[in-house]
């Protein structure tokens, strides 16, 4: 009897909760009523954009989402940006994409978790007239637009600059990212391509930083205090490495990094102290490029199916270019290369870091 009573009571309370939930439904439903027309091609504007990301708390990914929002606002063609952002694998992303389809979005921009696993849902979206753009990593689904940074070129351009700066000979260190991750594999291939052209360059050490600043800093400190190094190539863990030269009070050697704000600042401020280096771009603003392509497709401008962004290089001899990148108000990890002509139309880092979608 006692147990039954408790369960009865619990059930009653749950029932009340259910009724409350159902009761709440009525007022909330009112503003969500207008359905987006997905079939009409070459619309003029008022689009709803869905964004799917499955790595939360990563600075690069957050900046990617903010770039999409900023570009949506700047374009003037977007009414609403719906961001689905949670940690997960293909299972979660399929559910998220189906949720976006259910909401009647006009276009979906996703950073895919899997090359092939999402194809069925992407193709189902396209069949319903939704424009799908995969950014940062590719998908093989038919009809999807793909926008990626050229990771092979990222490493090749930087490495060639380094080897050229060293006069074609010397001992260099290759500080990679995470073993087995596609971006790291591609970058290593690019590094090897450059290395093949400079037979007198010797790779004296190869490390995996895990793209973690503190790990990279420790490795750099060990290397510069124990071995003889002529140059360093990094896969984006750059400003912590430069800091180690200052900590150990060792003269700088030429160094290649990414367009991180902290590194750009060092290249500008430490140039007089003898720092020679180059920042190679790997922009999270690729999200904004994805949005621009989605809007082109929606307005009937037939953009290219595959867009490969070639990285740009800014070295210490190009102070003006570096000054253009430097964003004094942002964190050290901020990716400074936010304006990607001809795709982006927002005004720069300030717009992106404001992270405001239309109506927010």
């Amino acid at each position, binding site marked *: 009897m006692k147990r039954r009573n*408790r*369960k*009865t009571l619990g*059930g009653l309370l749950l029932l009340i909760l259910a009724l409350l*939930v*159902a009761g709440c439904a009525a007022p909330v439903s009112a503003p969500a009523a207008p359905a987006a027309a997905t079939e009409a091609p070459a619309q003029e504007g008022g689009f709803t954009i869905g964004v799917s990301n499955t790595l939360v708390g990563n600075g690069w990914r957050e900046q990617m989402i903010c770039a999409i929002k900023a570009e949506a606002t700047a374009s003037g063609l977007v009414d609403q940006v719906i961001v689905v952002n949670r*940690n997960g694998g293909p299972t979660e992303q399929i559910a998220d994409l189906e949720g976006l*389809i259910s909401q009647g979005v006009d276009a979906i921009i996703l950073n895919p978790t899997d090359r092939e696993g999402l194809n069925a849902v992407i193709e189902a979206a396209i069949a319903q007239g939704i424009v799908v753009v995969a950014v940062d990593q590719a998908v093989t689904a038919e009809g999807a637009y793909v926008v990626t940074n050229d990771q092979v070129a990222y490493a090749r351009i930087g490495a060639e600059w380094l080897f050229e700066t060293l006069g074609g000979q010397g001992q260099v260190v290759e500080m990679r990212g995470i073993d087995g991750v596609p971006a790291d594999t591609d970058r290593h291939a690019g590094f090897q391509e450059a290395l093949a052209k400079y037979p007198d360059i010797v790779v004296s050490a190869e490390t995996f930083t895990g793209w973690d600043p503190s790990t990279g800093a420790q490795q750099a400190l060990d290397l510069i205090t124990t071995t003889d190094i002529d140059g360093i190539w990094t896969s984006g863990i750059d400003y912590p490495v430069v800091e180690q030269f200052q900590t150990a009070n060792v003269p700088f050697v030429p160094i290649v990094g990414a367009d991180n704000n902290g590194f750009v600042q060092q290249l500008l401020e430490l140039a007089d102290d003898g720092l020679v280096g180059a920042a190679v771009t790997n922009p999270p603003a690729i999200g904004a490029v994805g949005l621009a392509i989605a809007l082109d497709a929606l307005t009937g401008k037939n953009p290219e199916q595959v867009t490969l962004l070639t990285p740009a290089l800014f070295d210490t001899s190009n102070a003006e270019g570096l000054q253009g990148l430097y964003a004094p108000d942002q964190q050290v990890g901020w990716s400074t290369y936010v304006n990607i002509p001809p795709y982006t139309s927002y005004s720069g880092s300030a717009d992106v870091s404001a992270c405001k979608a239309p109506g927010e």
Partner: protein
Amino acid sequence: MTNRLALPHHPLLRTLWRNSWVLGVWLLLFGLLFWYSTLIPVFGPFQIASITKNSLPLVYLAIGQAIIVVAGGIDLSLGALLLLSNVVAARFMEGQPAGVVAAIGVALVAAMALLNAFTGLLIHRSGVPDIVVTLATSYIWSGLALWILPSPGGGTAPEMRWLFTGSPSGIGGSYWPPLLMILLPGMLVALWARNTRPGLTLYAAGSSRTAAQLAGLDVRQAKILAYALGGSMAAAAGLATVAITGTGDPRFAVGASATLNSVAAVVLGGIALTGGVGNLFSVVATGVTLIMLNPILIAMGVNSNNAQVIQGVLIAGVMMIGGLSTFLRERQS
């Protein structure tokens, strides 16, 4: 003191009152579904199929967890078993005809039942708490999964995908196959547990191990049986995952979050973590509810980073309702 919540006398009403928690969670789910349908432009077959199939892995895992919890245990390795089943299926089903795929599926369910039965035996024999043993085995199964499939890949037969998703491509098909696949196992297991001798033994052993032993029930067998059923449900969850995604994903985080969600679904389902109490059919509704929360919150325009917070608040809220009702009952008697 008088009992203000007297039980109704009509037999049908009595049955309804006795299962009021199940009723409550199902009503909650239908309330949420109704709410969701008003938030989105169209609510039709696509949405029903989508919600049902995406809920399958969690619902299966939650049923498995519920059986083990009812029998007085808890299994932190179920998510890892899901991973293992998912990668074995994806690795060996790729490019195979439907017959071979079916055989692999059945073999997987049987093998995982055996594997987890062994875990149950180990717990019973060693006297080490369930939570410790299954935490250890969860690392073993996750490691094994990575060893079998080092990076995402593999595949399965279209027939297998149809069985769980209603479509050979995994999306946009009929909603009947996933609907049946989500309701049938839960119903069967719930009926079995309430109406057969081994099923009732699970409840007895979970409620009070000593009392069950003194009553002449085989407590050891009950524990092994519960873990075996839990293992087979985890295998089914892995098969559903490969049917939905068409690939295997060996990442540890996937299994770990699946385990936690299965415990959440069990708790929401009114199944006491102390064992011996609860209706297994309620976890079907709570599993779907947990999956539904994310799209609903997104459709409401809630920042998706906050979705998890709200999920946690909901679980805490339901737990407090349970606690409050216990408190009131004790005041009454």
